[in-house]
């Protein structure tokens, strides 16, 4: 099954992302921040990573940078969840190796559409 790693420090956001993706038949693993996300990404191969940007311990930009440096995640789609106010982060994310972004607020359909876009 296609597996996705969802990294967000907000439990409600995580729940929503998970619920949506699981409902669409994806296998989803949750992580609470960048450190947790990186550990989980190392222990299991994911087909896609969706990460929040603002998080304690390790933010989403650094997580993307660290993931891209791992051989397993060279080509993996890495998506960041960002808000319209955080658009300047987009460029930082791109430089770190992000594939693309999902702009908050989003609804489940938009999320699925974006995920399907990268997972085909």
């Amino acid at each position, binding site marked *: 099954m296609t597996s996705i790693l969802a990294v967000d*420090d*907000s*439990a*409600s*956001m995580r*729940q*929503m992302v998970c*619920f949506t993706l699981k409902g669409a038949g994806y296998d989803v693993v949750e992580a609470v921040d960048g450190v947790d996300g990186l550990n989980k990404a190392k222990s299991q191969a994911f087909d896609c990573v969706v990460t*929040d940007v*603002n*998080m*304690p311990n390790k933010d989403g930009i650094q997580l993307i940078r660290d993931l*891209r440096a791992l051989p397993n995640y*060279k*080509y*993996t*789609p*890495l998506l960041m*969840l960002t*808000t*319209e*106010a*955080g*658009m300047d982060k987009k*460029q930082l994310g*791109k430089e770190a*190796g*992000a*594939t*693309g*972004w999902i702009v*908050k*607020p*989003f*609804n*489940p359909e938009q999320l699925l559409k974006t995920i399907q*876009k*990268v997972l*085909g």
Partner: protein
Amino acid sequence: MSQFHQVFFEESFEGLDVMESGLLSLDVGSADAESINTLFRAAHSIKGGSGTFGFTEVSDFTHVMETLLDEMRDGRRQVADGTVRALLESVDCLRDMLGRLKGAEPLDQARIAQTKAVLEAELAGAHSEDRNASNGLPATPEPIGADATDLPGSAWAIAFSPHRHLLKTGNDPVRMFRELAGLGDLKVAVDLRGVPNFFDLDPEECYLSWKLTLTGDVGRDDVAEVFDWVENDCDLAIYPLLKHDSAAVVAEQRQGEAEAVKTIQAAPFQIIPNSAEPTAHEDAKPAAKSAGSIRVDIAKIDHLINMVGELVITQSMLSLVGERFEAGKLDQLRNGLTQLERHTRELQESVMNIRMLPVSFVFSRFPRLVHDLSTKLGKKIELKLIGENTEVDKTVVELLADPLVHLVRNSLDHGIEMPQVRLAAGKPETGTVTLQAYHRGGNIVIEVKDDGQGLDGAKLRAKAVEKGLIGADAALSERQLYDLIFLPGFSTADKLTDISGRGVGMDVVRRNIQALGGNIEIASELGKGSTFAIYLPLTLAILDGQSVAVGDEIYILPLGAIVESLNISEDRVNRVAGKGETFHLRSQYLPIIRLHRIFQVPGAKATKLTDGLLVVVESHGVRCGLFVDDLLGQQQVVIKSLEANYRRIDGVSGATILGDGSVALILDIPGLVALANQ
């Protein structure tokens, strides 16, 4: 989406608490980056969540806070007192908004508009280059792909040459083409000219470029959106084929659109919230803390699951014994039953444990309260919190908040003196208020202690005499004098301030605490300070009880209240005409309360004192002897509220259901004493 609301609200309230305490501990002038970051993250999370879950008013509001915090984070804005105050107000306002949204109540638009205006005024104080953000405007969207070029029946020519590193961004041209193909009829022509000779080829790089034509009912923005993520990772050109055939025209149009987009975007943000129904803040405070759900430590859940596992094993063992039972298996059955009893009890304990919350849930609001009040009063006050991790039943925690707020306000207002008065009295300028929680016996004790001026017994007495509450020559102990402040309408303040004495008095505090089955005690020393100690039962739902028989009835006595039980002889009983009877127990005279008389129980076996038992009980400093027929077993009982199911009865604190299904009343000792005195 509504299924996530509960978690969103909980998380947001937590975020607000984090912001509040963060703001309070922020060093004006030299705030460290991490504290500001934490504040920003909290605001950002609430904004993201509220936007996603459809609470646009909240996300609009938090947007302004976020912008302000963002400027602080980037060092573009100094942390000033005014900013912190504005942010604290916003936290309050947000808490109110979320509380109302949670309860599906209408928002206080006037308050929101007002708080937002204060925030925006703060923002406006920033550098002019940030003005755009300070108006609450989102960044103007990129002009590419505005709706104006959304011409149906279009066809597009696309020249797409990815930069060589494109694959390493996780983007894949094949996926993008598939997406385009989903929009219309796609023709793809690959250009291989960029591919080097085999030996120079790096398999991780992308050397190909493409010419595509897309025909169909597609707008430009749909096409552009596919390439949105790779904008800077490729050379891209999108030309309309049918309607427009000159790239220059398109470029010109883009300029015009960009202007149009700006004006359209600006409009909705100028709508000023309608303040048609300004409701008073005071009476509309949402009970933000009384969440219907509870956050439980995972270790507690694990233990609970373990216990259930044990219980299931015991059950299956018992059913095995029961299936083919023979006399020889009696020991096995007994063992099983003992195990069952142990596990049931443990399970019950761990379930009760789930309801336990640390008192920090209540304590956490006090730093803010003390901060605000001391500023208002012009006093210097340090707040100490001790024993915040002490756990109390959720209901107790929730109901404790109001009495504690009252006591702390009192300490600040009446207890702690003004700085110059303190200095003159040889005390440190800064007063200390200590909130402490700890366990003692079956109780939790919560103390509010200050090093202020203390209670003045003489003054209290004079006031009470003046009000005609006591006679001028009444002999009162120190403690009885202090207790005067619990009388309705009694105030020690020379003049009422708007901080304490706002209608709710100490009588209400005491009543609230007593309603929880607790008690409040005062210790004070003139000039040194006062301590208000609240004693509360650990949990409200369960009780270690002693069952006693009176006639055909069974009553439950709280085990903790029982001092001893004894047979009595007539020669130690004194009868006072009209005042009842007392029992002489070791230099003390205890009033005897005959339960069968008080409750008019028919068929009491012991009508003569020598036939029954006297149970000596003590509660909240009152001792008395309860006369019953006999003592039965001890057991834990689950307390059911009588008020909820029937009505309040004097002398009874609740009821429980016994093993045989009958109902037994749980006796309320102070209530019984009061009843017997009537």
